[in-house]
């Protein structure tokens, strides 16, 4: 009777600790020490399964002999071994009154920890994911009562406790996973911030210029790719246009993108031809690229006086030129290699004459490869068709394209960054 009320009190005490969401460490320590008292056991331990290695280890141990406890904490053994292994396998509690006559008993654990296990009870830690470990008590103190070993009541008590412990461990693990996920999520957010903050996004970009009009947009995917666009004036009559897509996703892609953009801008401002610029940037990117990342990059210079557009393509989707009353055409030229892949890659310049009211559209494959729920791509043909209608302004054109892509991939999560840069040449020289 006395025993029963002590155990009830213990269960109540532990119930309160569980309810108070005590830290798992403290909770497990409380469980094993109280359990040892209530069961008159010399030692109590929680064994957990290391799923990867298929080993059992003791994260929590209470033992009369503190040195033995220390040795147990260091120990690991195959998950199939011993009584614990059997409990893990069968998911059923086991009581062993005399280990010397039980063939399932694994004496190796005793040898390693330099302890002697006479009798033991063990109960499975059952969670929703199956049996995740074992709660066991060893060596009932003979001085405690007439009985030399644990009773079925003791085993039932241990089993009752093991249920609560398993739930607590499960909850703690779920919380750890959530925290890890949150950290990862935060990293991706940082990547997204890097990517967004580096892009120029004040429009109109050149309010004083009547001879061209420009608009750009980048809609990052949830996992953040490494798209970027850029535009700047090299001289008052040379407008640089850049669009690029870094391989890979997340923080590495965002960093590589930041480096690529900076190198390109710094090189371009010295005034080399687009092909010469890509050659230089490619060599610089290859020199320090242990991660083997690469970037597809299109770079062109629009001469705003003459309408000559000189460009070089490093493995990127060819941009479209939209002429009034004519179907849109992709800019001809065999692409050179993506940048950052091979330092020996070569690049060529090509030139096309842009007439007043023509529009150049640069984009990334986030547009053409936007998927719908049936895994169908948006496609270059649909984009090209859309470009057949008259263009009011670069902003209107990009809004129209984004709306059409959105219509296509309704109900589907965007898997890649969607990036567009459009320039309408108006001609007439700059003021």
């Amino acid at each position, binding site marked *: 009777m006395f025993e029963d009320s002590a155990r009830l009190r213990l269960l109540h005490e532990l119930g309160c600790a569980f309810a108070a969401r005590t830290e798992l460490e403290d909770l497990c320590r409380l469980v094993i020490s109280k359990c040892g008292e209530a069961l008159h056991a010399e030692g109590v331990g929680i064994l957990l399964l290391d799923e990867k290695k298929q080993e059992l280890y003791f994260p929590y141990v209470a033992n009369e002999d503190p040195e033995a406890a220390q040795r147990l904490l260091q120990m690991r053994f195959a998950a199939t071994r011993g009584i614990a292994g059997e409990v893990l396998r069968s998911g059923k509690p086991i009581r062993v009154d005399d280990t010397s006559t039980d063939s399932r008993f694994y004496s190796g654990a005793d040898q390693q920890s330099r302890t002697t296990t006479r009798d033991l009870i063990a109960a499975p830690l059952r969670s929703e994911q199956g049996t995740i470990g074992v709660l066991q008590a060893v060596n009932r103190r003979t001085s405690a009562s007439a009985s030399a070993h644990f009773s079925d009541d003791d085993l039932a008590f241990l089993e009752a406790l093991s249920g609560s412990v398993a739930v607590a461990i499960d909850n703690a693990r779920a919380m750890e996973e959530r925290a890890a996920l949150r950290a990862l999520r935060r990293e991706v957010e940082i990547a997204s911030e890097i990517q967004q903050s580096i892009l120029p996004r004040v429009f109109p970009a050149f309010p004083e210029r009547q001879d061209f009009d420009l608009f750009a947009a980048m809609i990052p995917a949830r996992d953040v790719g490494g798209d970027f666009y850029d535009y700047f004036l090299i001289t008052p009559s040379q407008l640089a246009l850049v669009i690029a897509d870094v*391989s*890979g996703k997340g923080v590495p892609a965002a960093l590589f993108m930041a480096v690529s953009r900076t190198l390109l801008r710094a090189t371009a401002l010295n005034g080399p031809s687009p092909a010469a610029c890509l050659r230089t940037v490619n060599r610089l990117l290859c020199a320090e690229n242990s991660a*083997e*990342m*690469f970037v*597809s990059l299109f770079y062109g210079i629009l001469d705003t006086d003459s309408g000559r557009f000189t460009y070089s393509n*490093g*493995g*990127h*989707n060819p941009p479209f030129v939209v002429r009034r009353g004519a179907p849109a055409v992709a800019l001809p030229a*065999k*692409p*050179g*290699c*993506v940048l950052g*892949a*091979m330092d*020996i*890659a*070569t690049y060529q310049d090509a030139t096309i004459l842009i007439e007043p009211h023509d529009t150049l559209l640069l984009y990334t494959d986030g547009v053409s490869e936007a998927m719908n729920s049936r895994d169908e791509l948006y496609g270059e043909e649909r984009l090209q068709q859309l470009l057949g209608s008259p263009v009011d302004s670069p902003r209107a054109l990009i809004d129209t394209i984004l709306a059409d892509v959105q219509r296509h991939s309704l109900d589907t999560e965007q898997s890649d960054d969607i990036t567009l840069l459009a320039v309408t040449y108006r001609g007439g020289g700059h003021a």
Partner: protein
Amino acid sequence: MDITETRHGGTLVVTLQGRLNAASTETLQERLLARIDADEKLMVVDLQGVDYISSAGLRTILIATKRMQANDGRLALCSLTDNVDQVFRMSGFDSIIELHHDLATALQSLT
């Protein structure tokens, strides 16, 4: 992604079947690099059964090619499907990776 290996004289032919995307490329990369590190000097990757390659797939091919070159070996690809061929041409990878129309031509070129 199914990966099978056959030997044609001194050349190891690695035949792929499936989509070469971020998920499948890791296994392929491990396999190719293990073979190169085991001193395989001549290798052809047969892409006849691959109808899609992502930039992660291109990266694996690039990494294997560079490792092979550092080992004084040669890696070539052959039998690209239309989709894959387009990706190689668009990205300019066709200018830095050895490509062949079919396995016979690839083997002939390597030996």
